[in-house]
């Protein structure tokens, strides 16, 4: 009989980046790289675990922006173009490395991987990876949870309750459209919680969410079990707190598994290493060198000299690390069980893109972990939060504390010198959106153009609210793009607001916006009323 539970949570998210107005667009690579390096490898792991009857449990958020991109025919087409080019590149690489056995073997690995991506994406799942994840949800192995519609950081949106409600309402509606039932859980963007948010969650049937450790731990009244049991907010929605020890083992730059010297080095990429003329056809229009996703070296050590990657050795290390992680969870659960009068739950959330994209061997680590948990021990049982609540319905009532999982634990990442200027505009736009929603009833005005303008105004507001833009402004790479996206969406919103108020809608302008920012076609602006 188990002594505790382990809940692995993966947060899969990318902001909405879609630019049909350009022949190709650098930032669209975020999606394509994540598909090839994270989403497809995860789907392959789930398929292989299921095929071997390993009873795994993973909770995974697929954000509405990510779902919108994964199900968008235009981006699906572009992904196929992208992966087809990579297959070509890997074929040249197999030839080019013929006289270097170590690299040759790796080139063949990449060729096989890219071909597999194309097969899984196009043939196996008919271009729709959301349906792939849904398959595992329907099998009861994966609990897919939602996230705020465009990943808006909610503690800084509290001022506009209607905008917060819209972020949740649209997310819930979008979830139901894709998964055939309402979402039971939510990943709050950046784990950003403020007291009272649970009221909105409950309104849309959401039963649980996550906070960083101090969100639960500093809850009031004082939570008896720390982060090792959920607490019920006063309205009955459950909050699960992040376990720091298991987080640190994976995340920590110093002690974390992904930094092991055997693992693949992220930075050494043939996009930078090889002769310019040779790789030029695979770069973007402006010809700037970028990562192409073919990487031949291992981390090796704190040195610029890198040794070639040895796949078998790296996989051995991933198995070893999975064993170490399991051992530590067993000890943790045993000890907690001895001092608690119930079975502890250890909640370990990670960004999904950590696995595969950043930590190349991450998906295999997950694969090993769930196999070991299934076959090698009985102390810790993988579980989803919903299953936990079904088995342990009695939990302490307490209100979590305002918190996020960003640096220093509160709002500072998204509210500091580089990005604080956005809130004046976001708040005003949200206020204006509610004004528009209240002053305009469907059918009155009767013309379809105004209705479309109202819905598009809501889309522009939502896209401006993505926490990603403020995050990029702070972290300092690709800042120009984030600033431009913020300004464009706010200005587009303000322009539509003016046009609707003055009853003079520029059809061409509206259509251009509809074609580019085509997220949430089902959206009804009345959600802001």
């Amino acid at each position, binding site marked *: 009989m188990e002594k505790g539970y382990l809940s692995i949570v993966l947060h899969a998210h990318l*902001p909405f980046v879609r630019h049909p107005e350009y022949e190709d667009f650098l930032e669209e690579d*975020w999606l394509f790289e*994540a598909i090839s390096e994270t989403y497809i490898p995860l789907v392959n792991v789930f398929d292989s675990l299921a095929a071997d009857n390993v009873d795994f449990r993973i909770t995974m958020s697929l954000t509405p922006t990510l779902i919108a991109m994964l199900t968008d025919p235009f981006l699906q087409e572009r992904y196929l173009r992208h992966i087809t080019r990579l297959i070509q590149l890997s074929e*040249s690489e197999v*030839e*080019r*490395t*013929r*006289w*270097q056995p170590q690299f040759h073997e790796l080139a063949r690995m990449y060729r096989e991987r890219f071909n597999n991506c194309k097969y899984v994406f196009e043939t196996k799942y008919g271009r729709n990876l959301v349906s792939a994840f849904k398959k595992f949800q329907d099998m009861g192995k994966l609990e897919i949870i939602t996230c705020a519609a465009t990943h808006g950081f909610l*503690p800084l949106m509290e001022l506009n309750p209607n905008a917060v409600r819209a972020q949740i309402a649209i997310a819930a509606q979008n979830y139901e459209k894709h998964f055939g039932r309402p979402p039971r859980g939510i990943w709050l963007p950046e784990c950003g919680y*403020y*007291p009272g948010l649970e009221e909105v969650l409950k309104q849309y049937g959401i039963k649980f969410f996550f906070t*960083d450790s*101090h969100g639960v*731990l*500093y*809850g*009031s009244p*004082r*939570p*008896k079990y720390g982060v*090792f049991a959920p607490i019920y907010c006063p309205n009955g929605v459950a909050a699960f*707190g992040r376990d*720091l020890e298991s*987080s640190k083992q994976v995340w*920590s730059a110093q002690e974390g598994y992904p930094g092991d010297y055997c693992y693949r080095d*992220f*930075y050494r990429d043939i996009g930078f290493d090889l002769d310019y003329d*040779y790789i030029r056809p695979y770069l973007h229009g402006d010809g700037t060198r970028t990562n192409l996703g073919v990487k031949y070296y291992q981390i090796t050590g704190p040195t*610029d000299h890198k040794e070639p990657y040895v796949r078998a050795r790296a996989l051995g290390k991933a198995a070893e690390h999975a064993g170490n992680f399991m051992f530590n969870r067993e000890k*943790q659960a045993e*000890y*907690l069980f001895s001092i608690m009068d119930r079975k502890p739950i250890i909640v370990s959330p990670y*960004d*999904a*893109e*950590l696995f595969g*994209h*950043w930590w190349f061997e991450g998906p295999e680590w997950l694969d090993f972990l769930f196999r070991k948990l299934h076959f090698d021990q009985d102390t810790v049982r993988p579980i989803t939060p919903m299953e936990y609540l079904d088995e342990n319905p009695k939990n302490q*009532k307490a209100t979590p504390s305002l918190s996020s999982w960003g640096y*220093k634990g*509160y*709002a*500072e990442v998204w*509210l500091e*010198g580089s990005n*604080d*200027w956005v809130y*004046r*505009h976001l708040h005003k736009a949200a206020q204006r959106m509610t004004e528009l929603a209240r002053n305009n009833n469907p059918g009155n005005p009767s013309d379809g153009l105004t209705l479309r303008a109202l819905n598009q105004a809501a889309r522009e507001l939502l896209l401006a609210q993505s926490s*990603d833009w403020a*995050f990029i402004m702070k972290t300092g*790479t*690709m800042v120009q793009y984030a*600033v431009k996206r913020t300004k*464009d969406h706010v*200005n587009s919103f303000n322009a539509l607001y003016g046009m609707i108020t003055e009853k003079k809608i520029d059809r*061409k*302008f509206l259509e251009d916006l509809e074609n580019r920012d085509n997220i949430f076609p089902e959206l009804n602006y009345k959600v802001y009323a």
Partner: protein
Amino acid sequence: MKKSDLEKLEERELLELALKLGIGVREGIRKPEIIKLLRSAKAAPTPPAESHAQDAPHASSKAGRHAEAGQPAEAGQPAQTIQQEVEESKFYTGTPPEEFRLPSELPYHYGDDRIVLLVRDPHWTYSYWEVSQKKLEIERGNLGRAGDDAYLALRVYDVTDVRFDGANDHGHYDIGIYDRVGNWYVNTGMPGRSFIVDLGLKTQDGRFVTLARSNAVRTPRDSVSDVLDEEWMVPDSDFERIFALSGGLSTLTGASSADVRLAGGGKLPFGIASPGMGSLALMSPVKKKQRAFWFVLNTELIVYGATEPDAKVSIQGRPVTLRPDGTFTLRFALPDGKQIIECSATSADEVETRCITPEVSRSTRVR
């Protein structure tokens, strides 16, 4: 126009002047920067007659107050934006565009009288505000002569657990501010308390007139709650252990530390194990800094040739795909050592075969 004349103008008037001259200004630009821009633009005309110069309020006493009470909010965008905009405006011909074009800059303000307060963390809040020139003038007028040298200020009220009526706060303090449209980080230093901020005019004799009142916010606790639930009680020693474990400090490995005890204030070392990176940082992480000087060198060998388009060509036993005109090119990374490159072409009817076998060797010295 002289610098001293420009300094007499209000920020709003400077902005209008800049707009008239076609000088682009970025969001959140401050008065000294506008003046710099205006002075660098050639042939600045005199300001319109109706603009009435007012004394900039109390610049000297402000610095001290700012230093105590908060830190200035930095301007949002990189500095080169100004230069870019000036460059762009040089080519602005003044003819309105035919179709609707999106502005490249955000509105400077929205014509509201408004102040908003946001929570940054247990110790800091952030406020932004705007008040219309008109409102400001009316309120100055209402103050009579005292209005002439009244200055803008923020009044920070502690309104914890009260329904604030403007007078029943637990205490308040003022921060002198500069701009009609601006923002400020307010160091309240008090976790778990509620605050409201008024934007107002403060007279030299200490009277305060509210121009706009903010929403109320509550800063989060930065320690465990003192409130206990009888049904879920646990001995302090047990909670301490749970607490230490919740903080990721494993007593199993003996890594527990005295300063995570409740007695130490109940603080957790958050941030240590925070991801510190979102999925976006993962998508395009910043490249590690390389050492100052470096040099790499690699060699590749290009093998190319031509034959009849329908011939079969192989190199080192592996088939080669020909272009429609019968030419082909292969490219190999060339390591140290000797390569014997057997190439053969066979005619389509398999009657004729030619072999060409170059030998290439590379040896490298490094010093």
